[in-house]
């Protein structure tokens, strides 16, 4: 079996550029892009429309040729790999679903297993397993055709299809872009649950900053074909690389984006000499929750507070100033937040990267 399928996979892009030649001249769609996608992590590519996200992603599975630079998977240059084999080892989800209208849902899910020559019974079993995983009871959905499904259900099938052959890598291009906001939210939560379960190396394209903060272990922000900043969600909030980053995060910088960033991600390690009587907050609190929580504490004569890790040890530390910068305001009194916004996210524990 090819090295592509060996467990988890690491993707690297080194000085990758892309030109499109059109009759009206050459378009530089991607300019000197370098980043690494850690094995088992979800990297979000985000940026305004036309910033080169899709093109960057499509060079990974060679749906676009690479004009300059190198892309490797587990150290192997993708151009040295058989292109068909490469694509079968990489799950692929696109915005419009791209389901095959003449295949049943089960056959759609089992496309790659079929290409890989799995026997029929095993394909069927796998399809049912995955339909269940993405929340579509197989008894009810397996033998339907895509046109008999809602947009959100079609996207679930798209995700199941990408997972079918258990590829180590999955590329997703605005997979939830075409569904209504409520369904999108639901799909995002489920992707998080699924990712916690299957631990794939995922590259996820979106232009929705809320989605990026909710899903991304790291966020690569692009503009005009270049990377503006590559960092964790907390990095982007704490140390924006340029005014563009702040502006792009924009209004969402406020509660919505921050709700999916947790204190433990933001906290630095506890410096020596911090007294034990400063406030201690759980690392599982979201940033807005922390702001609200601190409004209840006595902050006089204190510069910061301790953040406890999963085992409850107060090993992290954050200054009030740092938290205030991230919140974009001074630490607010409790009543400025509605209960809905402050409601703890029931799935928070799933994604906490500690």
């Amino acid at each position, binding site marked *: 079996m090819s090295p592509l399928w060996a467990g988890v996979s690491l993707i690297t892009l080194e000085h990758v550029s892309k030109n499109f030649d059109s009759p009206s001249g050459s378009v530089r769609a991607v300019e000197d892009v370098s980043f690494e996608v850690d094995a088992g992590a979800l990297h979000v590519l985000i940026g305004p429309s036309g910033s080169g996200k899709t093109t960057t992603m499509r060079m990974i599975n060679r749906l676009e040729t690479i004009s300059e630079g190198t892309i490797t998977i587990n150290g192997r240059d993708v151009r040295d790999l058989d292109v068909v*084999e*490469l694509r079968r080892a990489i799950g692929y989800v*696109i915005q419009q679903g791209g389901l*095959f*209208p*003449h295949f049943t849902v089960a056959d759609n899910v089992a496309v*790659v297993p079929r290409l890989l020559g799995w026997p029929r019974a095993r394909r069927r079993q796998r399809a049912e397993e995955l339909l269940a995983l993405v929340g579509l009871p197989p008894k009810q959905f397996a033998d339907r055709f895509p046109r008999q499904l809602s947009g959100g259900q079609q996207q679930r099938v798209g995700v199941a*299809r990408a997972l079918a052959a258990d590829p180590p890598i999955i590329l997703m291009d605005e997979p939830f872009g075409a569904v209504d906001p409520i369904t999108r939210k639901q799909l995002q939560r489920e992707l998080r649950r699924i990712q916690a379960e299957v631990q794939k190396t995922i590259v996820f394209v979106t232009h929705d900053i809320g989605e990026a903060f909710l899903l991304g272990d790291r966020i690569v922000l692009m503009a005009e074909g270049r990377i503006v900043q590559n960092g964790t969600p907390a990095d982007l909030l704490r140390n924006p690389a340029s005014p563009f980053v702040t502006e792009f995060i924009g209004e969402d910088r406020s509660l919505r984006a921050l709700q999916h960033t947790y204190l433990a991600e933001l906290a630095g390690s506890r410096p020596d000499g911090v007294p034990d009587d400063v406030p201690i907050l759980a690392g599982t609190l979201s940033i807005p929750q922390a702001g609200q929580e601190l409004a209840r504490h006595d902050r006089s004569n204190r510069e910061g507070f301790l953040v406890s890790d999963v085992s409850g040890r107060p090993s992290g530390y954050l200054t009030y100033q740092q938290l205030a910068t991230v919140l974009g305001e001074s630490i607010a009194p409790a009543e400025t937040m509605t209960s809905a916004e402050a409601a703890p996210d029931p799935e928070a524990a799933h994604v906490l990267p500690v």
Partner: protein
Amino acid sequence: MFYLFEQPERVFELTLEHIRLVGISVLAATLIGVPVGILCTRIRWLESPILNLSGILYTIPSLAFFAILIPYTGLGASTATIALTLYSLLAIIRNTIAGIDDVPRATLDAARGMGMTGRQRLFLVELPLAIPVIFAGIRVATMAAIGIAVIAAVIGAGGLGRLIFDGLRTLDADQVLAGAIMATVLALVGDWALKRLGDALRRDAGAAAEGR
């Protein structure tokens, strides 16, 4: 009308001959036209010369066409079959190209992204989705061929045209009428049958045309 009842065996035999002539021609045109149409979608610059050529063939009047072919292939059914085949090509090639071009980009992109080879893309995705459109082309070609095949009787190809031309020569209006009625019935029944078959194929193909 009496001829139909006086000579039912002859009418039946000539009808079968007609069906055979049309059937063989359209089948041959399908076997040639579908691959040529596929080729045009793969090698794009071929499309316009091939469509132009088959378009020109289509505009040649049938009697002139027979006259051009007779020095090479003589009188009889084979000349008629060649002409009918060439006439049928246009509709079939054109619809094959249209059917394949109609496959949504996102579907094709997914097929490529899943790691289908070119051949798998063609046989698993493009052709199944194009079948309703290709079949509509075959139906149009068949209808035209049933009409043109009547004229082929002048060059000795047989078929229902025999009744019409023999009748005209012997001033037997009854016989002319029998030929005309049978050709019309054949066209109507043929159209209906092909439409049913096409609908069945469309359902099999997952109703690609609607569900996108």
